[in-house]
């Protein structure tokens, strides 16, 4: 069963315990200065942003059909059956195509080291594999970040909107975006106010390149046969012309 995270911004109190738990889980530094940073980076995989008394988390959406995993030339990024999108640092060549391609601009880079790697939230793949909730969900004191089966979380999110329609934007972000994501968001303010792209396709983006890539074997077979044929004809013609010229001498 595919797992997911439901973040309900209306329950969030901006305590940033999820940020701290995430840093601890991933062996990253955490202190007041870092807590104040409002941007995801190689040392901050999730952030709680605030606008007045409205809050919103950012983390890797762990897409159902992840763009990052499709573009990575060495398959360092992968979608697991349980939901998390993992990163295998030993494969990464540091090309940064994942950073360019991710529709949510999630992967970040270690710019200040000689041998950089990519960093991103991996939905605590190891914990999830053991049947545990993600570190952020376990740390959340209010239930704003909730871990569970994705299907059950969707039902619950729909239920919350139905029960308090005036409290929510009537949309579960991540239900259909780029074909759906393991992370689902609820909010009382439009998602674009926190920088979430709202005009994204409901089709998984990897289809855009796959349409072209899947045609290539035909292009090659057909093209090579065509070129071979043209060569055969043109060189025959020349051979014939040469023979005629000779007999004419």
């Amino acid at each position, binding site marked *: 069963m595919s797992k997911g995270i439901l973040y309900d911004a209306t329950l969030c109190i901006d305590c940033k315990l999820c940020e701290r738990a995430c840093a601890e889980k991933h062996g990253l530094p955490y202190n007041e200065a870092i807590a104040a940073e409002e*941007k*995801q*980076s*190689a040392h901050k995989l999730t952030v709680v942003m605030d606008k007045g008394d409205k809050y919103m988390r950012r983390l890797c959406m762990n897409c159902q059909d992840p*763009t990052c995993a*499709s*573009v*990575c*030339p*060495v*398959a*360092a990024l992968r979608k697991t059956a349980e939901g998390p999108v993992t990163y295998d640092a030993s*494969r*990464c*060549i*540091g*090309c*940064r*195509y994942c*950073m*360019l*391609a991710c*529709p949510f*601009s999630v992967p*970040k*880079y*270690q*710019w*200040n*080291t*000689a*041998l*950089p*790697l990519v960093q991103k939230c991996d939905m605590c793949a190891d914990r999830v594999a053991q049947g545990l909730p993600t570190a952020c969900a376990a740390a959340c004191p209010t239930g704003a970040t909730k871990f569970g089966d994705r299907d059950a979380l969707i039902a619950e999110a729909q239920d919350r909107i139905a029960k308090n329609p005036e409290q929510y934007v009537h949309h579960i972000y991540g239900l259909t975006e780029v074909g759906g994501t393991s992370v689902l968001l609820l909010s009382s303010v439009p998602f674009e106010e926190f920088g979430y*792209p709202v*005009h*994204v*396709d409901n089709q998984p*983006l*990897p289809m*855009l*390149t*796959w349409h*072209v*890539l899947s045609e*290539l074997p035909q*292009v*090659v077979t057909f*093209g*090579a046969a065509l*070129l*071979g044929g*043209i*060569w055969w004809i*043109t*060189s025959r*013609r*020349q*051979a014939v012309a040469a023979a005629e010229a000779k007999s004419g001498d």
Partner: protein
Amino acid sequence: MATFRWTFWKVVLAFVLLAGAVATVLRFSEGLGATTNLSDAFPWGLWIGFDVMCGVMLAAGGFTLTATVYIFNLKKFKPIVRPTVLTAFLGYLLVVIALLFDLGRGYRIWHPLVMWNPRSVMFEVAWCVTLYTMVLALEFAPIIFERLRLEKLLRIQRAISIPLVIAGVMLSTLHQSSLGSLYLIVPGKLHPFWYTPLLPLLFFVSAICVGLAMTIFESSMSARHFGKQLEMPLLIRLGRALLVGLIVYSVLRFQDVFDRGALKLITRGGWESGLFLLEIAMGLVAPIVLLIFPKVRESSGGLYISSVLVVLGFVTNRMNVAITGMEASAGVHYFPKWTELAVTASIIGAGFGIFAAAVKYLPIFVAEEAHPASAERREPELAVLSHARL
């Protein structure tokens, strides 16, 4: 051989290479953050946008010409094959060097060859570029073999030459178009002037145009600096082919921006509109207008200017796709740091230097050395694939 003399261009080259050397040391000791203006918001800059995207495009003459000469059997163009194959081979080597600068972990550059992801366009490009560089090396090899009089190797090379050319053309078709496909995945990020499902086709056609333009350009350069060049009738035919290519590209491009409703964005003005217009004016409108006049098309000066415009115009196009078009969505302005510029300039300088040395010491512009009238017959069949049919 004459003793070494410092000329203006040699001084410039030395200066550029020195700056490049300093930048190289900094790049590999301090990392990308300190030596580039790249950031999490803007992960690809000059080294990808120019060195890779434009480098591969500028090397496209190689496959265009080998196809013309060996597949379509237009043997008249044989004298140009060598310089273009050489440029292409150098071009790809330099692209690989640039990649070693840009990749965070260049020492893993071979990973895509063993760690597969067939859904990735970049995986496909990595394979094609690797294989094509090998094909180019084999196509270029006879020149070295001749020089060293390795008859046996020459014979082996000739036996496999036609399959080699076909493989080269197919590999080029794939990766030239795939450089465009790389950007199909960012519909929400690339500006509508440049994002189109046609990206692969446009990249392919522009590669052919630039391949032709570069061949004309190189011939003129060699004429100036080495006193060796192609015969006018050949250049004129190349110019005509270039005109046709440019018109095909313009029709595709114009219809596409028009159909997607992107054309009206020009009226909004701004950075993107300016560079979009520059690209169209320099790479398409100006050279088409010039080449349409037979007088221009049939003069070496006119051909030279047109080819330079085409090259600059399409370089602008690729930089627009890779840089200009990505800025608005990233919310940043990117301009390369001096270290990035120094590395790129050194790579270009090294390319020119090696090309000049090759023209000087290897039989590159062979036809010019034979008597024009009897060139066909007297010149020993030296060029790359000539004995294939035996």
